[in-house]
């Protein structure tokens, strides 16, 4: 039986975020929390492997506040068999290095309880931080080989074959088990849960892991264990509005546009 661990983060839906026009800060109130879309793609890749090999087991791992259980419930309804949530105030303020270290400790703990994993799948990046660092940093902490930017993962006996996005097109890469793969947007959508699966997910238990459950060095977590600091945040400058060409006749409008571009010297 193959076991796959999928890492999931609950994130604010950044497409719903607005900027306070006076204070220039993010308005987070009323912004819905969702499963990070790239993690949903990672879970879908795991679920597709399970479709082909039904004895595959998918274990979910998340780190976040207790509310993140809602995200795990959603994942349990679309292929996840079991879920673990790492939660605790001491983890707050962790940068990507500290976060990936905490996750690596959690993976060791889950491995003790569940047995070894052939693959760990993560979303390429979370849409709030957009760093794409936690996956590779986690792989390094665990000493696993990695492949990033996967759009398709095929499970072989002892290795995975990954179709990986590059600037020029794609690569196909074979990576030995156990490995870590980060997943980007494929050309298919993640499956939707059935009503029965949703109900069943509600009855599945989510195991909570606190700091006391993990083999962890407290010096390496939280703000104090993080090499990076946020010095300041600001909203990107907004350019003031330009010229709207109002000519009704499209041919005249286009002529005016060309004249303006020539005057500016960009044509």
């Amino acid at each position, binding site marked *: 039986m193959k076991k796959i661990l999928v890492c999931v983060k609950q994130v604010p839906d950044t497409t719903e975020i607005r900027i306070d026009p006076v204070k220039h800060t993010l308005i987070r109130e009323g912004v819905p929390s969702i499963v990070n879309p790239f993690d949903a793609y990672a879970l879908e890749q795991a679920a597709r492997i399970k479709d082909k090999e039904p004895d595959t087991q998918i274990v979910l791992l998340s780190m976040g506040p207790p509310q993140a259980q809602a995200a795990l419930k959603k994942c349990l309804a679309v292929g996840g068999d079991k879920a673990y949530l790492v939660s605790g105030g001491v983890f707050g303020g962790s940068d990507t290095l500290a976060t990936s270290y905490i996750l690596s400790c959690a993976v060791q703990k889950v491995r003790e309880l569940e047995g070894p994993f052939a693959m760990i799948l993560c979303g390429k990046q979370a849409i709030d931080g957009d760093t794409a660092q936690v996956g590779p940093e986690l792989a390094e902490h665990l000493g696993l080989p990695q492949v990033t930017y996967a759009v398709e993962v095929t499970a072989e006996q002892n290795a995975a074959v990954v179709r990986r*996005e590059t600037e020029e097109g794609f690569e196909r890469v074979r990576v030995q088990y156990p490995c870590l793969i980060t997943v980007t947007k494929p050309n298919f959508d993640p499956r939707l849960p059935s009503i029965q699966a949703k109900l069943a997910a509600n009855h599945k238990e989510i195991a909570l892991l606190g700091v006391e459950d993990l083999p962890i060095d407290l010096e390496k977590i939280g703000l104090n264990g993080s090499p990076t600091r946020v010095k300041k945040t600001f909203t990107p400058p907004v350019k003031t509005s330009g010229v709207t060409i109002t000519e009704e006749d499209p041919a005249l409008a286009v002529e005016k546009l060309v004249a303006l571009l020539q005057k500016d010297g960009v044509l």
Partner: protein
Amino acid sequence: MMKSAKNDFWVFVETDATGNAKNVGLELLNPGRKLAQPQGGKLVAVVVGNHVQAAVNSAAEYGADAVITVEGEEFAHYSTDAYTAVMCQLVQKYQPAAILIGATNNGRDMGPRMASRLQTGLTADCTALDLDPDTGDVVWTRPAFGGNLMASIVCPKHRPQLGTVRPGVFKKQEPVLGRSVTVIRENLHVPAEEIRTELLETIREAAVETVDLESAEIIVAGGRGVGSAEGFGPLQELAQVLGATVGASRAAVDAGWISHVYQIGQTGKNVAPKLYIACGISGAIQHMSGVNNAKCIVAINQDPEAPIFQTADYGLVGDVREIVPLLTQAIKKAKASTGK
């Protein structure tokens, strides 16, 4: 690694399949110099690959004070294991203050792997670089929350300070052709059994040789309003008349109308043309964060409420399927009359 006294700044100059330097590495030599100089540090380009003399020469011509290079068959194409191993060994030996890495897919694969091995801080996908005048630390500025917020990050106590930087944000300096600098050849190798991935196939998307969005002077980009794969035809014609490169928004790529190699924006390429013609692109912040550095933005969209009209220099409300062919004709006419 904890802080040490070395002040050298490194730029990882990624190479392509032919052993030439990718543009972003040469671009980063420019800000790298401005960061290294005030602290009396050297600007060092690091080139890893096989048969990469062309990249070594380019690094010298585009401003590196010295080049460290590692060559071997195992580095002929990128692998996480081989590249991370040799980069970390070089860091241990020379202890640079900071390393700038292009935020390409491979750069963003290797950067975090190095940060985790070296136990240091890494800032992803930066769009601005400065020095903190008090501490001399690099201030790495990057977009977060889908481009809604900018964050400036420092790494005060750990070395090297690491950052990946978006291609197309910085301009290459003028090259000094034939300039030669000290080249240190490090004889490092990674045993085959330590490389746990195997590249089976490289698939280039059709016509990709012509896609160089990051250095394009003019870009004609299409979005959802283009309507179909065929809808890019008139955009291609306009691009041809202008000598421009075609690009696309994520909506058009997601719809399957055009390959992801053409995508511009937060999850695509960062561009800095003098003229950006956005056709049927609504202008979500994720897209606009990739075109911030365009000198002049023209928006053609039939929705007068589309957010792109707030950032465009010139806005034209109308159906791209009607406007674009008219624009092609008008530009042909204008070019004919000015004799260009």
